[in-house]
């Protein structure tokens, strides 16, 4: 495996970052569309506020600018592994609720689940390149959701999709920071303090 800072690793790193940025931007656009479909199909009010949902990784980050490249990748990977399971649960619930009659929400959910899985794999590759290797999957499965009422289930789904949309933007920013500094850059990738 190429050491983290060889030319080929740098090229590969840059390629993975830019492909990752494109995938994250596409995912964000599809999640935004999915949110519209979800709100409409589930009969929810788009402006409803949803409290933090247990087991859903929050995209909000403090001192984001000071994170190291590896921290960014690890945070992203943990988040998207969790979203992969959450979306799979939602897909299952959605099939139970709406069955095959629904030709819009199910496919849209499945498409986003596919992108989340692809992006998770992408992050694992990047971590491999950081000569660090992606952490094992055990323990990253979110706890089985508590028995919820139908309305609570719908709200939870809304919370999941909203956080995912925020994560997609965060991932674009994270990958840009990574692309800026090359592989193996454990150092904090701060924001210039010019202003």
């Amino acid at each position, binding site marked *: 495996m190429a050491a983290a800072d060889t030319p080929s690793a740098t090229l590969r790193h840059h390629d993975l970052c830019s492909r990752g940025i494109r995938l994250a*931007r596409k995912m*964000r656009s599809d999640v935004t569309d999915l949110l519209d479909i979800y709100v409409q199909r589930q009969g929810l009010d788009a402006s409803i*506020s*949803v409290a933090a949902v247990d087991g859903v990784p*929050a*995209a*909000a*980050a*403090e001192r*984001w*600018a000071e994170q190291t490249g590896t921290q960014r990748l690890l945070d992203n990977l943990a988040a998207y592994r969790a979203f992969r399971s959450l979306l799979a649960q939602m897909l299952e619930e959605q099939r139970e609720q709406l069955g095959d009659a629904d030709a819009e929400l199910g496919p849209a959910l499945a498409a986003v689940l596919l992108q989340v899985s692809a992006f998770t794999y992408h992050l694992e590759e990047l971590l491999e390149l950081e000569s660090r290797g992606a952490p094992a999957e055990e323990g990253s499965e979110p706890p089985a959701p508590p028995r919820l009422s139908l309305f609570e289930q719908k709200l939870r789904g809304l*919370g999941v999709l*909203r*956080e995912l949309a*925020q*994560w997609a*933007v*965060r991932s*674009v*920013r994270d990958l*840009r*920071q990574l692309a*800026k500094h090359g592989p193996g850059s454990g150092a904090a*990738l701060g*924001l*210039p303090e*010019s*202003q």
Partner: protein
Amino acid sequence: QRHSQQDSHIQYERVGADVTMKCGSMDWDAAVTWTANGTDIDDSHLNGSYLILKNVDLTQSGQYSCYEGSSWHLKYQTYLRVGVPPKEPLLTCRSNNYPKGFYCVWHLPSPTYIPNSFNISVIHGTREMVCEKDIFPKNRCHIRYLQLFSTVKYKVTLTVTNALGKSSTTLTFDEFAIVKPDPPEFVVAKPVPNNPRRLEVSWQNPSSWPDPESFPLKFFLRYRPLILDQWQHVELSDGTSHTITDAYAGKEYIIQVAAKDNDIGTWSDWSVAVHATPWTEEPKHLTTEVQITETTSTSTSSFMPPPTTKICDKGAGVGS
């Protein structure tokens, strides 16, 4: 000779109010004199020693003084300020330096004619954030993002208070929704030599945008010949220059650029407009000797160089 003795204070009254002023501790039936800004007020406004002002208006703001009839001792003095309570203030919050923070700016839709005080509170989830007021302008303050990528909305409440009342406005918004860069700067448009249909446009990221590398901007260019109203547009996802290749030859163009974060928020306002005219071939004033003989033999040429024209064509050396 009038003696100033009594403490004076400010009295606020609404436009249209009826105002009664007592002459300090003087009895109702005491002989007194009232002045407004030093001018005696006639007795028609008095009810005993009380001063009665009906349906006051802005022009009646001023200093009112009451003197005891015989000793001319100043018994009462007030500064009357006529005004109105504040209407709901107009509040705008915006991030033009994302991801550093955002600012909020406010103003009143109409004047109150009396001093107002403003209080702003910024709540993010359960956390109250500090809005650092600017020295100038006074109606603006800044908030630093403590968290990025949050799904929790920001709630900003502005309360304006004056002596006659209070009013407030609340804004609730998502972090991404208020991101709006400043317009691009240093926009320059130049003709491209030997290309009569091209214009080269370049600009810079707004200096207020802190990290264009991690938070790249995309741009929108609009251009039109001055003779037309219809703009042409082109969106550019990166880079800070563009070559217009379909310009009308010889026509002066007006060009503007706008900016937006690549992923979130809204477009900036248009930049300052710049003007440019595509390159045009230099008109040939002089025709060489050979050409002259040719033109005279083939046609009766209508072109007669004005006697003052300076012959500048080096090759021919004809007349100078």
